[in-house]
């Protein structure tokens, strides 16, 4: 029940917004994220947007993890199966 799904905001109408969740569209409430803009990704929980995803932070984590992978593969002793 607590699972939040990331959704992309397509349209904003007052206190609700049309979002795209993995290809399907739905209307959600945005009273908790009144500053949301079209194109933002939000976490949706039971019909309400609860948080705007900050892509900068998401990219920064990815960068940090990539460095970790690079550091480990430098000696190229690690084989990653996919």
């Amino acid at each position: 029940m607590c699972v939040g799904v990331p959704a992309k905001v397509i349209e904003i109408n007052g206190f609700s917004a049309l979002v795209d969740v993995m290809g399907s569209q739905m209307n959600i409430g945005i009273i908790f994220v009144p500053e949301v803009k079209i194109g933002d990704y939000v976490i949706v929980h039971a019909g309400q947007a609860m948080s705007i995803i900050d892509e900068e932070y998401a990219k920064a984590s990815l960068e940090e993890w990539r460095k970790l992978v690079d550091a480990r593969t430098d000696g190229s002793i690690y084989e990653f199966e996919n």
Partner: protein
Amino acid sequence: MQELMDQYTSSKISRALLDEVIKLAKQFQKKFQRIPAFMEVCGSHTMALARTGVKKALQNHIRLISGPGCPVCVTDQATIDAMISLTDEENRIICTFGDMMRVPGSYGTLMQAKANGNDVRVVYSPNDAVRIAEQNQQKEVIFLGIGFETTIPILAAALKEAEEKQIHNFSIWMSTKLVEPILRHLLNNKEVALDGFLLPGHVSMVMGRKHFEFLAAEYHLPGVISGFEAVELLSSLRRLLMLALEQNALVINDYQSVVAEDGNEHAKYWMNRYFALCDEPWRGIGTIAQSGMDIREEYRHFNAKEKFSVPMRSPRKTKCRCGEVIRGLIDPPECVLFAKACTPLNPIGPCMVSSEGSCAAYYQYMREE
């Protein structure tokens, strides 16, 4: 996160993080002569750790203990029974999240009540229940309000809509829970020894990182707020291990793309506007003071407990040990009913039926074939 990362990159990163986590866990073991024990507080984490295989991959290196974070599982039996009894009246529509339908009451389930012709409807959002009330003004519509801090603002959003539209036949039967009081309860009772917490990403998105600083300040334990994908879980476990190794009691936000220092001020505003702290009964624990939220006095016309009463029967006793499971005292297989009398198709307790329940997670992903 998925948008930024393809499958290949993600499994490459997971692999590297997993190696790191195991390395750090071994260092911990060497230093303290035992394996580290962390509690994941959130039911979605319990499920995600099992589903992604992280829990299994780490089972000899870290004790991952599921905490009291599955909303259905922590709801006490008398409350579940009362919610099911509510359906027994003409001219009522009971609306609920889907997770509640198959939860065993002492005398049947919501699903059975529905099969018997009672009007029980699963809704995606409590606001849908408000709309059902709008369309059925000759009936009383009651929403079963269970959940933690993530869900309480959602219930507030429903009350806001009902208030604005002046809908008088809508109410909520509240049984919500708060994370901080239950963590304090567990820690004060010292029933389970822990080296740190994997903190709930979605509760934190409402309450903020600072909300959990009491763990470090008062209990000298580290905590890391985590997301829900394999890479995010592993990344947070890695941070948690680094803190635990150095006995560095800090509360770190490893889910910064979603969680802010102070959480979501709007969500907090609305939840406090409609709800106030109340004492709540927890399954297998009893009543904990100020551990939940109930509808404020001035909005009592939305409070189903004020509007309706249900016959109180004493809950039927079973051998179910969910109470101990949610306190982290036992793993599901330690319950004699696990995978025998109690399975997802024939659940004896809520922990086996909820999509966030520990027994369900264990049954699906952790059993040795």
